[in-house]
């Protein structure tokens, strides 16, 4: 392939990565606003604007630890090429769209990690897996919903204890306003953690194609483009998942919404600080369940939770299998085209 051809291919994959980020916003950002919509603090239209703004604003505040983990801590960046990234994105986008269609709040982050693992293993075998990085991510797959659940429950107990003296006419408007702050914090955490996953993918692609020189780093234009894409995705909304998150897991009052958002935001900030890619969906679902379980355990619809857990278990293998199949297809097609290009001059001579 000529240099121009490589550049065009890289640009196409960067656009695909940004499309994934857009779908991530569309799919996951519902989490940021589900509780605000459920408690009627904001109308759905205003809520998506609020979340999209803070998704984008996260570009100016947080580090790039998560992007580095995705870029260097999942599979060996030396074996990454255009085909691997294309296949990883195809696997992640496929699984995101399937779960979006069925209204299942699965994780875009884990779909992306599954895609990378599947495509990397298809290319060069199991040895390309960065075991320490994947172990850390896998630990947080379990930890993030549990942490969200525990913090949500603790926050709800603390808030109930603090507000038992407050008049309902004082507490209600107070929590409606505080929920705006907690939703903004969660959207910032979502933007910080999720947009960085796309940044990591684009940066490792540019690095493998030789556009970054000898050092791996994330260029500023990549940071801004990733945050813009996720913000625009949020604006488009994901109403099927909002419905599941907002009403089907448990019914929320403004105080509960505030506790769930605050607990989830704290978990996301901690994970972003440590450079761990976590699922915003897992985190907020755990937090909503934690808040609901304080009222009474039967207030949580655990059956919906179980369905979500199945989606979590399936996400990495499903995205990985689709990514591996895509890699073999793309690789075979590229080899076929190469052979055809070599044969063509001989046939025409």
């Amino acid at each position, binding site marked *: 392939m000529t240099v121009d051809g490589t550049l065009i291919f890289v640009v196409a994959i960067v656009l695909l990565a940004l499309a994934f980020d857009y779908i991530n916003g569309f799919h996951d950002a519902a989490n940021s606003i589900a509780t605000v919509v459920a408690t009627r603090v904001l109308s759905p239209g205003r809520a998506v604007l609020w979340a999209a703004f803070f998704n984008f604003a996260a570009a*100016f*505040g*947080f*580090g790039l630890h998560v992007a580095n983990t995705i870029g260097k801590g999942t599979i060996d960046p030396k074996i990454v090429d255009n085909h691997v990234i294309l296949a990883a994105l195809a696997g992640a986008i496929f699984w995101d769209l399937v779960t979006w269609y069925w209204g299942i709040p699965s994780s875009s982050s884990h779909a992306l990690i599954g895609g990378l693992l599947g495509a990397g293993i298809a290319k060069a075998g199991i040895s390309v897996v960065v075991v320490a990085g994947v172990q850390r991510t896998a630990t947080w797959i379990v930890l993030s919903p549990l942490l969200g659940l525990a913090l949500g429950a603790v*926050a709800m107990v603390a*808030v109930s204890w*603090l*507000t038992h*003296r*407050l*008049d309902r*006419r*004082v507490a209600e*408007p*107070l929590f409606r*306003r*505080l929920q705006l*702050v*907690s939703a903004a*914090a969660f959207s*910032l955490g979502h933007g910080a953690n999720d947009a960085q996953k796309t940044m990591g993918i684009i940066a490792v692609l540019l690095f493998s194609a030789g556009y970054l020189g000898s050092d791996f780093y994330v260029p500023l234009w990549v940071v801004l483009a990733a945050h813009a894409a996720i913000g625009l995705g949020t604006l488009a909304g994901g109403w099927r998942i909002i419905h599941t998150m907002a009403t089907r897991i448990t019914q929320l009052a403004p105080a509960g919404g505030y506790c769930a958002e*605050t607990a989830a*935001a*704290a978990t996301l*900030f901690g994970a972003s600080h440590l450079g761990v890619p976590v699922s915003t969906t897992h985190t907020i679902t755990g937090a909503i369940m934690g808040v609901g379980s304080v009222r009474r355990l039967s207030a949580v619809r655990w059956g919906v939770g179980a369905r979500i857990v199945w989606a979590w278990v399936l996400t990495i293998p499903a995205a990985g299998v689709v990514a591996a199949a895509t890699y073999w297809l793309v690789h075979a097609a590229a080899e076929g085209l190469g052979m055809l290009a070599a044969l063509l001059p001989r046939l025409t001579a």
Partner: protein
Amino acid sequence: MRGIGGPLALLSIWALTTVPAGFSVYILRTIFTERWPGSAAGAAVESLPGTLLIWLAVTAAFTAWGCAQSWRRA
């Protein structure tokens, strides 16, 4: 004060705002350490007195904002 239920109620409201205010302080600190490392403003924000001052100011602002509707009604 009576509009919100007395000093203990105000203390409860203030306590409720401490965590969101903590987020604001964390975000401010991160912005300064990531974007302007080593600057004088960054050092002021990162110092313990600076952090506490910002945190207190933000909790006060959130408390006033959260109570504004009840005060207006009273």
